[in-house]
């Protein structure tokens, strides 16, 4: 049973965070993050070879989060597996007690640490969301009855500030039609545009969790603006961090303001502290959420 679903459907404002599985078998660093973030969030995303770089699988790491007493959001990208493996891993997730699943297309391997890898993309996220919905009804993608069904609370990524918005938004609506029940959005930079997107999506029956990214240093801003796909830090925010006497403290203040601002608009916040886990509780306290 997904507590995330229960809270969102009850209309409560949720907080999610994220942890990254290790490159290797020692999960102790990830578990330290889990111990810091778990108590102040309702669920934790467990990333799946994020940025097309090699990590231990989200499947095993999500289970470790569950075993530690917290609720994971199992992430699955379409980049690394074909339709057999994706369906098989979804079934495995269900038997491991993972109910929240965030289905994403995935970054291209050419931007990751194995640029020679074949990007699989046998399915895209819209198609896989449809398939996961079918699994909840006891069917595989061929429509065959399975022995036992799944009970996934299905999430997807959404991009409220991408332009052209009408085209990106149409894809988001189709994800909802395919069965996505919650969105975790790209980092919010412009609250007004975010609000406009929520207004378009919410009537289709989706809960929108706003992405909040800690712009913790000028270096991070440069990285986002030059290396990260699908996001740009607007000059106004970049200048504010760059010009601050203590950029880190300023970024915590900015994130706190952003959480406060989206609180009246979104159904929750997803905080991405880029390793500064300790800042999450400060942001939440500052916004009156912890």
């Amino acid at each position, binding site marked *: 049973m997904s507590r995330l679903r229960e809270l969102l459907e009850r209309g409560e404002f949720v907080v999610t965070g994220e942890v990254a599985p290790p490159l290797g078998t020692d999960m102790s660093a990830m578990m330290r993050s889990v111990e810091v973030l778990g108590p102040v969030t309702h669920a934790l995303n467990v990333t799946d070879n994020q940025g097309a770089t090699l990590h231990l699988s989200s499947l095993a790491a999500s289970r470790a989060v569950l075993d530690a007493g917290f609720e994971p959001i199992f992430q699955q990208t379409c980049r690394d597996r074909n339709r057999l493996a994706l369906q098989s891993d979804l079934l495995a997730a269900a038997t491991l007690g993972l109910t929240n699943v965030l289905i994403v297309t995935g970054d291209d391997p050419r931007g990751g640490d194995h640029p020679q890898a074949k990007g699989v993309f046998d399915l895209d996220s819209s198609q896989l969301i449809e398939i996961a919905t079918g699994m909840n009804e006891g069917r595989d993608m061929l429509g065959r009855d399975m022995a036992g069904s799944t009970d996934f609370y299905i999430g997807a990524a959404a991009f409220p500030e*991408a332009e052209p918005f009408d085209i990106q938004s149409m*894809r988001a609506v189709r994800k909802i039609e395919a069965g996505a029940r919650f969105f975790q959005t*790209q980092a919010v930079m412009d609250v007004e545009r975010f609000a406009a997107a929520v207004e378009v999506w919410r009537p289709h029956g989706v809960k929108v969790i706003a992405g909040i990214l800690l712009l913790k240093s000028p270096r991070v801003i440069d990285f986002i603006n030059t290396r990260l796909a699908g996001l740009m830090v607007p000059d106004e925010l970049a200048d504010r961090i760059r010009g601050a006497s203590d950029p880190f403290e300023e970024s915590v203040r900015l994130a706190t303001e952003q959480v406060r601002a989206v609180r009246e608009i979104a159904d929750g916040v997803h905080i991405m502290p880029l390793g500064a886990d300790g800042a999450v509780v400060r942001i939440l306290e500052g916004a009156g959420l912890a």
Partner: protein
Amino acid sequence: MIITRPREWERILHNLAEVKARSVFIMGCGQCATVASTGGEAEILEAKAKLEAEGIEVTGWAVGEVACHSGGTRLEARRNAGSIDDADAVLVLSCGAGVQTVADATAKPVFPGLESVFLGNVVRHGVFEERCQMCGDCVLDLTAGICPVTTCPKGLLNGPCGGMWEGMCEVLTDRECTHVRIQRRLAEQGRVSAHAIVPPKDFSAKLKPGSVNLREGRERGRRKAPETTEGEGGR
């Protein structure tokens, strides 16, 4: 047409050295590789000069009408039987299909002189772009005549992905996002609601090796998808 580009010269020399070739016959292609300026007369003469500079004798060369045509290439090999016989190896400046046709037409070791890269549209003279993967399961009916399998670097049937920014592609950042182009054209044609989610592709339509025999009226390399109790949505 098939687009080729020059193969790394060191690899060619390494191939020739492996069979201790001191003499080489060069075969080009009068069709695609000539148009692509990789395997016509000019490029053959260039390769000839480079081989000779390495101390390798070039016993002769030929540009057949089209290297991948078995009959024509066998004829070309017969015409040049003497010079091919004198050579330790044959270097072929054509696509991989042509290289294999030449390899079937002579007993000599045959090596590729080019890399075969894609089926190309000729955008204008000397400018080629990949628009079709020959996947055997065409989606252009659903995508306004723009192939996402080929022109989206991720090959997504549904998009844009989250990397799209200001209409541009995440991977090829100087190019417009294929899915933005598709959706705009569909809208211009009033076809926005023509489909919801494009269903998963049938990759069995592209089983290797493909084979078509019009004489026998049968097609190999294509297998029926397994029976399903419910369709996957039309295609």
